[in-house]
């Protein structure tokens, strides 16, 4: 929202500080300013000038004009405008000497666009001799988000009220309600639902002359970002920018009948709007209609058919109030945000409709000389309720702010913002809220904390530690667990990455995930981000491919949430960790590195070969099972190499772990067991077997055969190649034999060893000497 400094000063005549200082105060006490710009910078030195003579420049389109530049005297300027001719009155701007088309030009003649009066840049501005040039202005731009809750700040008078309160200056009201006419209006207003349209007021005028607005008014509108069109439309925009009340003017001759109704659109109705777009309407859209159908989309935009044109001689001037959420719904549904809808969706004050009409009554005779009011004012309104006063306890207010307050100061602040203050006793105020703050903004004592706090200055509050009970904080175990996982993986050489939660349908298909099993984003930001990830794999895969362009070897990991569809319920979130190793070797080391990382998280986990997924190396896919504190092992994750078709120029291995399951399985606190007192004996076994026999299978058999006295069975190494026959390998294990209550005799040891060897032989394994 752009605010004109001059406009504000019209309502706060005592305002003397420059715009820069005012901007800072507004930022600190009302709303965030985004900066100051000068509007009509060229107007600052401009003078009305008369073109005395014009002569062409050989070989150029430009002409040399000799002008009487008023206070600047006679000047010779080069001008390219086709309307530059002897005898016209225009605007001279001193810019210094400059060679243009080979001729020294002393300043320029300006167009209305260059002067920022309107957007007309077809030629230089022609004046009729009676109009004064508008003055340059300072424009303070306020962040719209910071006034979302302040319907009153969408007009200059509202901001002027703030400025008056901040500076302690009196505020002038531009509205004279006594101008409102009595008597019957020639139009009748019908409101179907007062909830949607609390109030509709209108005036009818005849003998209207549609013409351009005076330059000062055009310059004002341009300065605050509105586009001058003609005197009638400009009037509605001017009052909107001044009083925050959007208005609309209909060409009365184009209306059917004398009844204007505010009603929900009938299904199938359409309207051709002022922006030349046609909208198909439904009962969720409130329309203004005449006898024939919709003439405006209420609170959003007017209809083209009843628009003001050069031929208009009679108008209906609408000043209505609409329910905020209804306007917002229509405006969002039709993707049509206008200056009017932006204001109405902030919940405008229904008292304001007639104020805007009174202001129009003052301005119209100036803008359209000879205009005549027809009849009285149409004003259909629900009963406007007066909000109950707010009870404000002053000690409470002081406690909320954390500083002491003078009663008189609190009263002064509230009254400067036009709150009504009654002192019910020494500690309590009864505060009435002005209608323009009562629609949504101020309703409870806490809202008054803000009013007093901001005006007294938050910088007057000293930082104070709170006096609260000391208590240990509640810390969910998940957090600390996740930290441990991240720390472990980073210590193991993995670099943490963070990927998006979105994936594309194509990615889902690439990894063989069913597209329909994903939660879909209804309004994705871009193609390729339409599904919620059900696995961290697509992101990690992307990381592997991208980083392989820069590195020969790398290890990375991510922890993040998988989002899974749950029919009829909120999607389930599951935190996983996925780690990856990329290398240019045979891939073996990377997989074992990942296994080591997994074993660090789940000591004693089991790896079980698994049927490969489409994205996995067919011979290198395994599930990870871990018992942890549970009775039986559970599948906590997966370890595999990516299919070579997916990774160019190297090997990519990935480890996926369900961190929620891993956490649930965390063993309970360690129980100490007495250290063995009796020595153990150790012997090695080398087993000759098929080359794809699993070491884990052999180990399991040895454990089983060794029984209780085989305390530990450890894999030592394996060997393949001559002198062993093709297709065979030798796997060595070390068996530690011992008993808790005695030293085993050599006969015991031989017994165990023989039992294991015989057992293995009978299973078809061969023992190497």
């Amino acid at each position, binding site marked *: 929202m752009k605010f004109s400094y001059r406009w504000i000063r019209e309502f706060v005549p005592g305002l003397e500080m420059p715009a820069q200082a005012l901007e800072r105060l507004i*930022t600190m*006490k009302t709303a*965030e300013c985004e900066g100051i710009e000068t509007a009509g910078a060229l107007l600052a030195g401009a003078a009305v000038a008369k073109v005395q003579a014009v002569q062409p420049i050989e070989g150029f389109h430009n002409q040399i004009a000799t002008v009487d530049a008023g206070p600047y005297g006679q000047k010779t300027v080069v001008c390219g405008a086709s309307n530059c001719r002897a005898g016209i009155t225009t605007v001279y701007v001193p810019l210094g000497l400059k060679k243009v088309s080979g001729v020294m030009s002393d300043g320029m003649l300006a167009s209305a666009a260059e002067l920022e009066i309107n957007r007309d840049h077809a030629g230089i501005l022609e004046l009729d001799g009676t109009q004064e040039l508008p003055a340059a202005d300072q424009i303070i731009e306020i962040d719209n988000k*910071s006034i*979302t*809750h302040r319907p009153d700040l969408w007009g200059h008078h509202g901001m002027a009220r703030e400025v008056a309160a901040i500076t302690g200056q009196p505020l002038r009201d531009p509205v004279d309600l006594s101008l409102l006419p009595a008597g019957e209006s020639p139009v009748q207003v019908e409101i179907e639902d007062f909830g949607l349209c609390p109030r509709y007021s209108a005036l009818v005028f005849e003998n209207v002359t549609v013409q351009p607005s005076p330059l000062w008014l055009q310059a004002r509108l341009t300065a605050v970002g509105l586009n001058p069109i003609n005197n009638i439309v400009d009037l509605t925009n001017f009052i909107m920018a001044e009083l925050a009340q959007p208005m609309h003017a209909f060409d009365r001759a184009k209306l059917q009948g004398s009844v204007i109704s505010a009603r929900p659109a009938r299904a199938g109705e359409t309207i051709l709007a002022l922006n030349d777009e046609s909208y198909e309407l439904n009962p969720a859209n409130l329309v203004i209609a005449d006898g024939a159908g919709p003439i405006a989309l209420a609170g959003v935009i007017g209809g083209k058919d009843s628009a003001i044109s050069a031929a208009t001689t009679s108008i209906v001037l609408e000043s209505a109030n609409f329910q*905020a*959420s209804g306007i917002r719904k229509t405006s969002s549904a039709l993707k049509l945000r206008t200056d009017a809808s932006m204001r109405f969706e902030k919940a405008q004050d229904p008292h304001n409709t007639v104020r805007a009409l009174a202001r129009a009554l003052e301005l119209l005779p100036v803008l359209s000389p000879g205009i005549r009011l027809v009849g009285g004012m149409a004003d259909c309104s629900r009963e406007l309720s007066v909000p109950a006063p707010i009870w404000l306890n002053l000690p409470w207010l002081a*406690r*909320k*702010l*954390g500083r002491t307050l003078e009663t008189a100061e609190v009263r002064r602040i509230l009254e400067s913002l036009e709150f009504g203050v009654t002192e019910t006793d020494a500690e309590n105020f009864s505060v009435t809220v002005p209608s323009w703050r009562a629609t949504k903004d101020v309703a409870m004592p*806490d*809202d008054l*904390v*803000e009013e007093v706090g901001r005006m007294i200055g938050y*910088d007057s*509050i*000293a*930082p*104070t*530690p709170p006096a*609260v009970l*000391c*208590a*240990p*904080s509640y810390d*969910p175990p*998940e*957090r600390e667990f996740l930290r441990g996982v*991240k720390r472990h993986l*980073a*210590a*193991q*050489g*993995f*670099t*943490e*990455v*963070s*990927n998006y*939660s979105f994936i594309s349908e194509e990615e889902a298909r690439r990894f063989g995930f069913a597209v329909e099993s994903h*939660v*879909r*984003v*209804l*309004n994705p*930001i871009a193609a390729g981000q339409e599904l919620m990830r059900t696995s961290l794999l697509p*992101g990690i895969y992307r990381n592997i491919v*991208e*980083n392989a362009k*820069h*590195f020969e070897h790398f290890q*990375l*990991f991510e922890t993040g*949430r998988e*989002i899974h569809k749950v029919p009829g319920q*909120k*999607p389930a*979130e599951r935190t996983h960790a996925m780690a990856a190793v990329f290398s240019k070797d045979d891939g073996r080391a990377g997989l074992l590195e990942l296994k080591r990382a997994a074993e660090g998280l789940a000591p004693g986990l089991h790896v079980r070969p698994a049927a490969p997924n489409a994205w996995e190396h067919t011979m290198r896919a395994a599930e990870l099972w871990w018992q942890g504190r549970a009775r039986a092992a559970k599948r906590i994750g997966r370890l595999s190499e990516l299919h070579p078709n997916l990774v160019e120029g190297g090997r990519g291995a990935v480890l996926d772990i369900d961190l929620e399951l891993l956490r649930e399985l965390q063993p309970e606190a360690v129980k100490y067991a007495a250290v063995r007192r009796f020595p153990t004996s150790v012997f090695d076994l080398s087993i000759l077997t098929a080359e794809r026999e699993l070491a884990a299978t052999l180990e399991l058999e040895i454990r089983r055969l060794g029984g209780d006295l085989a305390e530990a069975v450890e894999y030592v190494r394996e060997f393949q190649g001559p002198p062993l026959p093709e297709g065979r390998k030798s796997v060595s294990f070390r068996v530690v034999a011992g008993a808790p209550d005695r030293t085993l005799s050599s006969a015991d040891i031989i017994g165990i060893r023989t039992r294991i060897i015989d057992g293995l032989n009978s299973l078809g394994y061969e023992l190497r000497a």
Partner: protein
Amino acid sequence: MQDLLDSALARITAAGTAAELEAVRVEVLGRKGVLAQLSKDMGKLSADERAARGKFINTAKQSLEGAYEELKSKFEAEALAKRLDSEWLDLTVPAPGARPGSLHPITQIQWEIEDLFRSLGFSVLDGPEVETEHHNFDALNIPPDHPARDMQDTFWLEGHHLLRTHTSPVQVRGMEKLGPPLRMIAPGRVFRNESVDASHEHTFYQLEGMMIDRNVSAGNLIYFMKTLLTAIFKREVTVRLRPGFFPFVEPGFELDIRCLICGGDGCPVCKQSGWVELLPCGLVNPHVLRMSGIDPNEWGGFAFGLGLTRLVMMRYAIDDIRWLQSGDLRFLRQF
């Protein structure tokens, strides 16, 4: 006899290697050695002679053994020195195994702030990334069709769910779960439906904080923010509050810090204003308390939202927000 002894001594000292020395030892000190020979015919000698011989043998034994031991130690020392020398090792070669990994800069700063707040008695809570409209908006006093919903462009999911646009829903969940009094923070990933460029991301990290107790004032809020920011920036910071609108707080503030680059004199970082907008905060709106089952007449509090992503960018002077979600190790390995 003396000649015999001298020649034996000479043979010991002449040994050039440990093996030679051992051979001499056997010849001289062994069971069939020179000394043994000398003691053999002791029985034939007279008592006086025997005493003299015995004395001689003892002396000879001592000197021979002494010479032997001395030389043996020398050879052992030489052998050890040789072994050690042969075990020369170049410790400048890289160690085998993986290089240390690293944690994402967001993780690092998040932990730092979590630890700070835990030391002040705050709980660190977590909430879902997929939220209900109720928790993300309604319970935070942002009803449907409230213009404040425009402030946070939302990703909508099928089934009327959404991706949380802020970590504030965890406030609600925290109040529902733990009740007052309450001190909590909630760091996490949030989503806004915004186009991505050097300074905008649709996925970023926030840290929400809340304190609910009796008699919590704006002065307490300022105290906590000052403590927090001084710890984060590791130097004294000056803060200021100005009005800001956020429906879940009343009054609501924008908190600025005095520009750390120019100290408040004005520079490009603070756009010449001397202040940098850092975080939104405020006193918890009574409606929000009531919706979470807390009596606003008895309890009050403050809440704030800190942009972790923004903080990381400030701390490391990162010029493009997209690096953070890029997964690019050239960037991430620096942290």
